[in-house]
């Protein structure tokens, strides 16, 4: 093992131990510890919510809901998985619950609304090709977008993503395939028009 590798391993172990300590303190009621956990994880949670919802204000709501739900559920968190993994699952559930409430309120399937929102929201700033890809993801239909974000970006297996989204594994695979196909077409089209 190189000195550098050992150093990073040591660093990872130190961060893991620090996180366990923060989780334990937050479980006992320390809001300061929970705030530290928030700062460590908010980027990934918000990124996940933003890409799944394609809407900044909704992503902020879902991020807040996820952390509040995590605080409530923390006493039952048994560290069988990493805190971050557990938190992401809560965030996905918050996004899905938000979508369901919106559909119930509007009495629609939601995809048309999602699409309109996505098109109207030019946020997620980045540069170069990333802008194109982020914009392409944002404009995908909700089902395809959520499956792609979970599987293609955040590393969930098709089985895990299907379970979270409440769809069949085959449906998840076809949604990811559809998302990739649409993204490919749209990115090609944008290259042609530029």
């Amino acid at each position, binding site marked *: 093992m190189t000195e550098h590798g050992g150093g990073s391993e040591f660093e990872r172990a130190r961060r893991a131990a620090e996180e366990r300590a923060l989780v334990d303190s937050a479980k*006992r*009621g320390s*809001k300061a510890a*929970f*705030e530290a956990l*928030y*700062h460590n994880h*908010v*980027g*990934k949670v*918000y*990124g*996940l919510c*933003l890409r799944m919802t394609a809407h*900044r204000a909704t*992503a*902020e709501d879902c*991020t*807040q*809901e*996820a*952390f*509040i*739900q*995590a*605080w*409530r*559920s923390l*006493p*039952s*968190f*048994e560290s*069988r998985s990493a805190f971050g993994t*557990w938190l992401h*699952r*809560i965030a996905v*559930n*918050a996004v*899905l*619950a938000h979508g*369901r409430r919106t559909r119930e309120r509007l009495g629609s399937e939601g995809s048309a609304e999602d699409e309109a929102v996505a098109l109207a929201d030019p*946020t*997620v700033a*980045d540069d170069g*090709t*990333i802008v194109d*890809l*982020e914009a392409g993801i944002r404009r995908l239909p909700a089902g395809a977008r959520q499956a792609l974000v979970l599987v*293609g*970006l*955040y590393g969930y297996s098709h089985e895990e993503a299907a379970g979270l989204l*409440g769809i069949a594994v085959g449906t998840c695979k076809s949604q990811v395939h559809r998302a*990739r196909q649409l*993204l*490919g077409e749209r*990115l*090609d089209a944008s290259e042609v028009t530029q």
Partner: protein
Amino acid sequence: MTADSKPRTAQARGLDAGLDALPRGIEPERDLWPSIEARLEPRGERAGRRWFWPAAAAVLLVAGSSLVTAVLLHRDEPLVARQQSANGPVSYAAAAFGPGQTLDPTYAAAREELARTLSARIDRLPPGARRKLEQNLAELRRASAEINAALELSPGDPLLEELLLSTYQEELAVLASVNQLTGGNGAGPIDATRMQL
């Protein structure tokens, strides 16, 4: 490899590379912590999950329903008033759902009240009805334990929360129906008309 599949593969590789290059984390444009902190209940003083408030309201609605009656009391069962069961009292404590701290206090109080009344009246049910009641409660107990275990792994899962809510409602519907069917105040005979619904 065909001419068509070649660019597609290159495109797929390009897409994979693009996805890999995207940063997983995106910082929100405003600090969300103050809004989150304002909504964090102190440990030990939690008021219960929000979704148990509608549960309590729903229970009031189902309490008057005769839906569970058909399950509990079959038409062909002989009506035996005040027959003492040889099996002893039904255990209501065992029918408790989920971790106690997640129960809304209003909901918990309503459930306790129903369970207390039921305890005084259960021996007035026909043996068959009592057996069915015990089976129903045991089934609901098993279901709720499984759902709670799943919820610990996946907090906030909307489907699991819905299932748990439905299980709570069913339990209270069972308890409420027994109360209703056995006369309401605990002193009178079983209302045979209502039992045969």
